[in-house]
């Protein structure tokens, strides 16, 4: 770990003007600093900022402060009752100890678990050293992404929470040197393309202050299903977040997002289009799953993720429409 200066911000303005890396729970940043992957010269502690509240909004939506801890968010009564997919996604991630530390804003910015990204003895990582190549391609790639990859990067986005938020159409609110703005979560994450070092829409100095969720549709049912090698403390091989509204055996409204398979939290628009207005039957679920994975580009070791992700979607749809 390289030496750094540490300052604690009292206000959002102070934080965004400090010119350093923000640290909340530290569950990603400190880990990567120990590995010398992250080498910030200045850390700005934002744990004292007034962003740790969950509030119900007048329009029925929910406002989640960026400093709300994963465990507090998962067990918040509003979240448990009306945004079950988010609660389930949060509780399926990491361990109880990590969830007690990890924050909402930090989890939105969680970095990949790609072993080649995390090991600086590999100089060829386009995320760390733009233009240097990708050690993961041709390496141990079982956990890597199959959707949204490029010849520059195949790293999987690791978060469960973000997948739940994708299916809930969250909006991310940021504040920065140029003022405050809002970004739909669907526009927040960049595909790696030729610049995998640019992971999201944040501008330099911008701080995530909170997330808002729209009011859930009253008839909707929500499911988060995570498939993984072991039962706990394990990243997804494939996960699916489904928010579904059915009537008369037909799907009236549907949102499907996937984790463990994409270079970003993956919204399966093709699956949604294939389901809209259709009867909630296994055949349609399977067709939707096929549509969601039709562009999958597996590596040498992770071809199984294609079939596993399809089965994950089918099961999640079955559960959400039963």
């Amino acid at each position, binding site marked *: 770990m390289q030496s750094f200066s540490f300052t604690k911000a009292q206000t959002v303005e102070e934080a965004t003007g400090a010119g350093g890396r923000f640290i909340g729970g530290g569950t990603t940043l400190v880990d990567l600093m120990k590995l010398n992957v992250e080498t910030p010269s200045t850390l700005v502690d934002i744990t004292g900022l007034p962003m740790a509240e969950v509030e119900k909004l007048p329009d029925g939506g929910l406002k989640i402060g960026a400093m709300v801890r994963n465990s507090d968010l998962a067990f918040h009564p509003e979240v448990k009752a009306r945004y079950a997919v988010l609660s389930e996604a949060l509780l399926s991630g990491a361990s109880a100890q990590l969830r007690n530390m990890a924050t909402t804003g930090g989890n939105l910015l969680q970095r990949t678990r790609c072993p080649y990204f995390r090991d600086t003895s590999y100089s060829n990582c386009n995320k760390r050293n733009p233009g240097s190549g990708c050690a993961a391609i041709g390496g141990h790639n079982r956990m890597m992404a199959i959707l949204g990859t490029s010849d520059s990067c195949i790293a999987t986005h690791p978060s469960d929470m973000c997948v739940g938020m994708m299916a809930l159409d969250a909006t991310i609110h940021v504040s920065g040197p140029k003022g405050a703005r809002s970004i739909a979560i669907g526009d927040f994450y960049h595909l790696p393309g030729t610049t995998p070092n640019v992971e999201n829409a944040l501008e330099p100095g911008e701080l995530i202050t909170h997330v808002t969720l729209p009011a859930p549709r009253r008839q909707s049912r929500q499911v988060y299903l995570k498939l993984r*090698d*072991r039962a706990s403390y394990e990243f997804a091989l494939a996960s699916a977040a489904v928010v579904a509204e059915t009537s008369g055996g037909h799907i009236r409204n549907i949102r499907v997002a996937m984790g463990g398979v994409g270079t970003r939290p993956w919204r399966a628009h093709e699956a949604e289009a294939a389901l809209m207005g259709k009867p909630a039957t296994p055949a349609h679920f399977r067709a939707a799953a096929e549509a969601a994975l039709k562009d999958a580009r597996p590596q040498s070791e992770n071809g199984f993720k294609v079939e596993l992700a399809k089965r994950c979607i089918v099961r999640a749809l079955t559960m959400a429409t039963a």
Partner: protein
Amino acid sequence: MATQESTAAKMAGSPHGIIGRPVARIDGPLKTTGTAEYAGDFHLPGMVHAVPVQATVASGVLRHLDVSAAQAMPGVLEVLHRGNIERIYRAVPNDPNATVSETRPAFEDDRLYYWGQYIALVVAETPEQATAAAAAVKAEYAAETPDVRRELEPFAGKWHTVSERGKVDDALAAAAVKVDQTYGTPVETHNPIELHATVAAWEGDRVTLYESTQGVVNHRNAMAQILGVPREHVTVITRFLGSGFGGKLFPWAHCALAAVASRRVQRPVKLVVTRTMMFSNVGHRPVTEQRFRLGAGADGKLVALQQDALNHTSLVDAYDEGCGEATPYLYSVPNLKVASALVQRNVGSPMAMRGPGAVPGLFAMESAMDELAVALKMDPVELRLKNDAVKDESNGNPFSSRHLRECLETGSAKFGWSRRTAEVGSMRRDGKVLGWGVAAASWGAYRFACATTVELGADGRARARCATQDIGTGLYTIFAQVLAEKTGLPFERIDVLLGDSSMPEGPLSGGSWSTATVLPAVAEAAEGAIASMLAVASSTPGTPFAGADAKTLRLTEGRVHRASEPAAQGVPFEQILKKARLNRVSADGRSGSAFEDPKARGLSMHSFGAQFVEVEWEPEIARLRVSRVVTVIDAGRIINPRAGANQIKGAVVMGVGMALLEETVYDPRNGQPINANLADYRMVTCPDTPQIDVTFLDYPDYALNSYGARGIGEIGLAGVAPAITSAVYHATGVRVRRLPVRIEDLLRSEIRQA
């Protein structure tokens, strides 16, 4: 638990009762309160910190090291490397009392044999400074393409015959039913939760090493040779171990590095091996690849068995896993051949890991037996009962005590095996498919030499000393139980001092032999100390026993009394010691190896067991979990069923990991263990842990020692993985012969719906 009831019932008839009682470990409070001192916990005045630099290629030559930047960094005292380190000697080859894990000392030549090999060592004031400077050392390599392939075939080298009888070729050719399959197990990393660590402190030409070792005596002997000092000048201290699973049996390269660094800087040096280094530098269970050929009659009677076992080893050590460990004696079969060979890979040296040989060997053999049962359309328990051996057919010796049949029958009854339907995927519960599997287990029973001292002190306490160590299984408590049995003192008045090489020499913590080894020596020492105490009582004027024949005296509940009178009428022994102006009485106890014991001669001594496993399978999402394990163990008399059941349960959990999760993966391009951390190397978590039912048959094996105890550290792991893969086959129809079972294997199942 049934075990505890049956033991309690036996205890009622025992005069003292402490042997066989499920007592809590005496070191428990120290561990739960964080006050037990492990090697890395020792902080000595003036101590500095050493961090090794690792090679980032697995094959080739170290061309150049640039340490100038590191040397100039804050707090750095010394950067040691091949060019400036004093000589580190090799340990004497094949010295059974001074074994090392890796023959080649660090920095011996500029050749690179495996990824992560130590190439330099930074010594600095703080661990952070040493770590930062280690990262600043620049190395230039002439890199070559390493060979870290998991596949060991095709193999064209020379085979070594381990065991042979009859004519296996002819019998296989003529057999009515045959199985011929190859089974593979991956590199498993020991991963004890306590990191390897050395704290070295010199005083003149004497050194004290605070170590995480499974053998303080061997460690002292080896380090004396390696450091070039007399044995008497080295003291090794291991108060507690956060386990080792075999990985800490013998010294590794870092131990010598810490010691020579300390000698160089003339200050105590601490070196803690990181978790990531532990995947490359301190051993692993090697890859095995085993071809098994079984031939049987239509009635299920085995007629032929051939095992050809390969395991990988490093370029610097010829480590033989010994996969044929249990094969020659487990079943009755007239024609048998076991052969083995080694294949070199660019990996660090392998090292014995819990149940070495038997555990991967039984995975292959018991998997083949399950396949034979399927081929015969015979129940797999029935097949094993039919082939039970009444003597050790590899040498004709009778078994000292063998109850495999009862393990299988008891396990069947407890598990409910009679309700099993044989057809794949035929059992369902709560929307899931169930799979049931079984396997037999075995592990050797050993006893080695041990010396110990027991004292009765004027402070009213009994005290045992032995240069062995408690690997974390409960050996402190075993000593205390024997002292309590002999003296009648409560645990509160018993001290057990272990883990110091200057004490009387005790055993390595390995091979599940510690308990069987120490029991007779502690008993003899305790009896000697008591005899001495009674002699003092009879010869000390002013005591009620002065002039009495010592033979008529007893020590009970800590009191000396006449045999004809109750203990309550006696005198506490410490009062007699005070009267006699003695600080203590003491005696040494010694016992030899079972190999030299006439009582054990001509007997085949092993523990046995049976593992019954249930898996739950959700075919729609390829989710498989082990839900239930019934394990029945025949390991002689169980001295402490609580610590014993804990060992077996832990071993079963490890077996779940072996079957479904654990594998160290090497990047084929550079030979790096790529999942070298506890997130990416998957071990079992609490929600993966099945319900585990442990039964000990508790038949004493008096051929091994006077208590009839064998060992229980390893037997619990044997047979778990093949029972699981057999259950996986029963649920899914997928036969996994290459561990671990992965979701990608299960997706091949033709059963798509529960």
